């Protein structure tokens, strides 16, 4: 198929349909409205159902019902809406239901703003809802990558019975780029024998549930979940290393910010400064090993984490660097976007010994 020009949000929606998603439950919020709008037209054409819920709270619980019934289900929202969905996401993680949740992140806290941001990193990777749980969190840095990873997200969700979050930002959602819809590598997926489909008198009732009133059972359930999370960490961690070999300074950046950092790296190269980048593609599981390896690399003097936030992912970079090399931060937030020039300047300061 030839490349076509697609807007990020619509491309994500079409990718979901191509991945077999037939149910979408959502609520309007900027800057992700093109996703539900697109789904409202396209899903009925594919024999699916689009439903505009009365709130994000209801939407995520419709996802719970649909996913528990065995369907491929998606919802999308932006930061304040994801906060409202947090309760439901915790239940979905607890009940081990597969689904895909898109967060086109905007500035916060509170109502914040509607411009691109990455200030929901903590919410996505460290919880958001209550309890010990994880989501697979995928952070595309181009519309093409958003399309590829959205399709794969449904397979990951089904393989591990886990909610997968596509974490874009206003930039990924709103910009248009050339896209090719390609089939993703086939995975062997388990049958959904646990789904509620009516017993048909042929099996015992299936129960979709996250309640374990006996504390030992509840602990056992958590231990089971974490065994699964370990397996996901081993199998699904994704990262792009860019010019890390021989780099003096290694940037760590994801999503839209990573594209800007690449620009800065090329500028630095022209000035004779060797810079590289570790770009986490999965924010959870975080590519700890890539950062550890760079920290052990003799050429590396420092890390510079660049985010569209006040500094959230930097915590994971510090944990991975484990004190071996200093970890610095540069960020813009609230919808402000870092410029390549500002990143170059900050890198020079770091290499010049600034704290």
């Amino acid at each position, binding site marked *: 198929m030839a490349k076509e020009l697609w807007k990020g949000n619509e491309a994500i929606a079409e990718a979901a349909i191509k991945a077999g998603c037939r*149910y979408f*439950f959502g609520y309007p919020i900027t800057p992700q409205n093109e996703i539900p709008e697109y789904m409202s037209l396209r899903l009925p054409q594919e024999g699916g*159902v689009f*439903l505009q*819920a*009365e*709130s994000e*709270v*209801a*939407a995520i*619980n*419709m*996802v*719970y*019902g*649909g*996913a*528990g*019934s*065995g*369907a491929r*289900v998606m919802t999308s929202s932006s930061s304040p809406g994801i906060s409202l969905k947090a*309760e*439901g996401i915790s*239940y979905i993680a607890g*009940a081990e239901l597969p689904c895909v949740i898109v967060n086109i992140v905007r500035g916060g806290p509170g109502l914040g703003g509607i411009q691109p941001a990455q200030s929901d990193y903590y919410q996505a990777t460290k919880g958001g809802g209550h309890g010990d749980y994880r989501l697979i969190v995928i952070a595309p840095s181009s519309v093409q990558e958003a399309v590829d990873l959205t399709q794969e997200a449904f397979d990951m969700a089904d393989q591990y019975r886990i909610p997968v979050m596509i974490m874009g930002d206003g930039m990924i959602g709103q910009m248009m780029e050339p896209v090719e819809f390609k089939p993703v590598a086939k995975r062997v997926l388990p049958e959904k024998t646990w789904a*509620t*489909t*009516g*017993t*048909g*008198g*042929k099996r015992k*009732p*299936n*129960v*979709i*549930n*996250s*309640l374990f009133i006996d504390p030992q059972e509840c602990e056992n359930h958590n231990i089971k979940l974490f065994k699964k999370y370990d397996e996901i960490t081993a199998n699904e961690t994704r990262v792009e290393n860019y010019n890390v070999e021989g780099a003096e300074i290694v940037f760590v950046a994801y999503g839209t910010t990573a594209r800007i950092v690449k620009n800065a790296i090329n500028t630095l190269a022209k000035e004779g400064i060797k810079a590289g980048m570790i770009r986490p593609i999965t924010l959870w599981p975080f590519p700890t090993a890539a950062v550890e390896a760079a920290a052990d690399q003799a050429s590396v003097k420092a890390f510079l984490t660049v985010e569209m936030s006040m500094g959230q992912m930097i915590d994971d970079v510090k944990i991975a660097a484990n004190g071996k090399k200093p970890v610095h931060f540069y960020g813009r937030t609230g919808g402000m976007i870092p410029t390549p020039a500002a990143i170059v300047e900050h890198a020079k300061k770091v290499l010049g010994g600034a704290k």
Partner: protein
Amino acid sequence: MAVVFDKTKGLTDKPFHYCPGCTHGIIHRLVAEVLEELDLVDNAIGVAPVGCAVFCYDYFNCDMHEAAHGRAPAVASGVKRVHPDKTVFTYQGDGDLASIGAAEIIHSAMRGEKFTTIFVNNAIYGMTGGQMAPTTLVGQKATTAPLGRDENHAGMPLRVSEMLATIPKAVFVERVSVHDVKHINQAKKAIKKAFQTQMEGKGFSIVEVLSTCPTNWGKTPVESLKWLQENMMPYFPLGNFRTPEEEK
């Protein structure tokens, strides 16, 4: 030996956890009997609430979901949209449905979601220990209304059936009680009609069942049945508020 009475196949063998004198057990059995009589047990998918009936997923002998507090109608909407040919129901108490889940029940009714809600109204939060509910009567004592509900402070109890009956797609709305045999039989008829309405694809159906809570009302089971009749029924009058026939 001839079998003269048998437990419905709509229930599992798991013993109920309900307090002595609580009418949840009766209501469970009515729902299960109706499912069996309509041959829907193998076709049904239920959604349990948070509240006293939270464990009903262990009692109904069909596929079940356990929802977050108040969200059962949203979960049921998701289930029914995926399985439009299945029988879907929610079983919810007054805190779950009329307080935290008010938006979900209203909008499910507004959309005409084709599932059935069994709404158990006992005018109190049971599981958490007797706090005031949206349906607690004026003057009725609760652990968060120790002097009795004051209408100037906490407002007046919500009449859910009357409210939902104003919604065009809520096609079957009836309030029943289970305080004596006659009313239990009437309640079962209403529950059956609600499920039939669903299976005929006519729209949203709900049966509000007035129920007792001897533990948190501080009364014996017998006193509770009397208190329901004397105090709840005047404010929450029994009767049918909507039937599909009215639409014609």
